[in-house]
């Protein structure tokens, strides 16, 4: 019996977390959310799901409705219609202490001492004073901020303030951490530290939502995304699947430079682009419908020495641009008709 306890590597708090999380597979489920402000509709029938333990990207340009959605999830505002489910339950005030939110518009009390301030924010999230003190000390050690306890916020540098802000966001060990534009304003060093901490939290079980308009900054981190534009959902799903869906059968073929440029072959492939890089030529080719890259290679191999072949998969940003332009031109057609 005692042996079992010793070999058990799970800490009590982790057990508590596991206990809290039921077997439901989605941390968050947003169903048909509509939010209407006086003059504009911030969210128009938006639905999406965030898998437990995943890193999720809430993407879209400025003004798309990301912050409105986050505010609804945080119960700062309520939707006009639609429902939000948190860990399988209808969103309710008990969930507040299980969410950690770093708003885009963030700040601290300038005249308040850091230690006091952290205690206050942690207690507002439902921690007892003692618990809060222990955890703050732990984090302060980890982030090398021990000497800051009695300092006022106004005496700290911007980067230091953001570290404090981040710790305040996760101090209550939330199951869901929502970070709105998390890396803006951070210097590269601190941004990296924070990114590592976020990933560590994710590994220990927390679900992360990144909200940003800079899609490239989180694309590599995210398992799944939802793309919002002008208050409507454009698409959502696993990053890999989305990118696969938007494959255009385009490849990059790098070969030793040849005296005569390779011509496109009707019905087999077209050449999108051709550049010289030192001794090599890089071709961007699009495989014609009904043919595969192997057919193209069969044609090319006798002609040139191939150095490298890579499929060109569109980035989320490319997909977004493509989708948005399609949408806009559709609207234009619709209005001109």
């Amino acid at each position, binding site marked *: 019996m005692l042996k079992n306890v010793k070999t058990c590597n799970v800490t009590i708090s982790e057990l508590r977390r596991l206990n809290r999380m039921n077997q439901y597979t989605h941390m968050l489920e947003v169903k048909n959310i509509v939010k209407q402000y006086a003059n504009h509709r911030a969210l128009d029938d938006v639905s999406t799901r965030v898998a437990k333990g995943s890193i999720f990207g809430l993407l879209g340009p400025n003004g798309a409705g990301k912050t409105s959605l986050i505010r609804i999830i945080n119960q*700062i505002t309520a939707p006009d219609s639609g429902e939000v489910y948190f860990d399988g339950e209808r969103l309710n005030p008990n969930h507040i202490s299980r*969410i950690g939110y770093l708003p885009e*518009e*963030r700040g*601290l009390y300038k005249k*308040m001492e850091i230690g006091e301030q952290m205690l*206050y924010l942690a207690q*507002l999230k439902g921690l007892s004073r003692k618990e809060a003190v222990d955890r703050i000390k732990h984090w302060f050690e980890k982030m090398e901020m021990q000497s800051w306890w009695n300092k006022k916020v106004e005496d700290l540098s911007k980067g230091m303030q953001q570290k404090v802000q981040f710790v305040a966001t996760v101090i209550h060990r939330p199951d869901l951490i929502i970070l709105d534009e998390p890396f803006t304003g951070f210097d590269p060093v601190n941004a990296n530290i924070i990114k590592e901490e976020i990933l560590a939290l994710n590994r220990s079980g927390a679900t992360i939502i990144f909200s940003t308009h800079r899609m490239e900054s989180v694309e590599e981190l995210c398992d799944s995304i939802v793309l919002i534009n002008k208050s409507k959902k454009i698409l959502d799903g696993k990053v890999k699947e989305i990118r696969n869906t938007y494959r255009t059968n385009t490849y990059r073929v790098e070969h030793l430079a040849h005296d005569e440029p390779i011509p496109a072959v009707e019905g087999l492939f077209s050449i999108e682009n051709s550049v010289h890089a030192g001794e090599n030529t890089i071709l961007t080719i699009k495989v014609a419908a009904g043919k595969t890259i192997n057919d193209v290679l069969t044609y090319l191999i006798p002609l040139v020495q191939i150095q490298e072949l890579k499929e060109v998969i569109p980035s989320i940003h490319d997909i977004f641009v493509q989708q948005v332009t399609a949408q806009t031109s559709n609207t234009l057609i619709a209005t001109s008709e």
Partner: protein
Amino acid sequence: MNKILLIIKREYLSRVKKKSFLLVTFLVPLFLIGIYALTIYLTAKSFEGNQATIYVIDQSSLIEGKLSNTKNITFMDVSDDIVAEKARILSEKEKTLLLIIPPDVATSSNVELYAKETASFGIQNEVSRQLEQVLRDIAFANAGIDRATVERISPNVTLSAKEISADGEKDSSAGAAMGIAISLSILVYICLFLYGAQVMRGIIEEKNSRIVEVIISSVKPFQLMMGKIIGIGLVGLTQFILWIVLSTTLMGVASAGIMDGRDIKAQIENQQRVSGDGVTPATKSQGGLFSKATHELSKVDFQTIVITFLLYFFGGYLLYSALFAAVGSAVDSETETQQFMFPITIPLLFTYILSFGILVNDPHGPLAFWLSMIPFTSPIAMLVRIPFGVPVWQIGLSLALLVGGFVLTTWVAGRIYRVGILMYGKKASYKELAKWFRYKG
């Protein structure tokens, strides 16, 4: 609920711990005591005066030798040479004055008193009192009336106003009541603005530093607003209670030590005794006024006033600070608050101005009654009426309405606040506020 307590605690402690709070809390009573001590000192001075010699040139020969020396004043008959005597008082080191009584003093009653520095009020009073007495005696004598007879038959009416109520009769204290009423209206007017503005500034600060969004992801905006309002209200109450305690203690020390209260009283009595066997009705009524004032003050029910003051201050504060909170949430900086302050200021200013005239003069009239019932004006209007005695049912009803009033304003303010605090860099209009109010959730 627990979270509201946390917010109240932070708002309260962060203000009470400030140096400026301690400074104001201790300086204001000291300032009041200073004024009080100065008043007592000056009063005593004017009674006491310095030793003075008065040269008397009596051109009428009616007064000579009839002026009696007092503890402080020595009268001395001198030559009739006005010019020489004027020069002499200039050269004297001691305080010396020159009293010139014209030949026709009996008919003109015009007497001149010269001094290097203007004669003190106490001396002037004493001289004119003695002259009047002498002249009156002469007039009585001329008319063949004996002064003793006059004193015997002269009526001396003392009017003591009584209040009658079911509980019995008691002495009225209209004069003191009026003074207290006006002081209360000034105090509550200033304090409502002072603490209301603190709420507003606190909210603007939270909005500007952008911490507000961090906090309202943990608590409801309404909790944050109420926590702030109650926290600052408690700061106000703490300050009042400290002021009352400090002032009364210091006042006690001041009257017991530096300026012995009994000493002054003794001096006054002494003055009256020395001033001669002939105490005229005039002096009597003068002394009477003084003692009447102290007597009236001693009758005022300070306990009731303090308690009702605290209740109405807190009630009025809750009502108005909610409005201040709504204003704070709607703007980005203090300079933008002007347009919204106007409707908040009007009812307070209106009652405040009225309290100096109509309310004090007719504390039980219909205007006073209605103003002390309407929640927006009752904190001032009722406090003005309290020193004059207000039936308990009226106080009860007015307090109940006040509670209803602040529930209403906090509800309205809360709806504006929850939207306003998340609106950055947007200049709000009244139309906008109305829209916010109607937003769902």
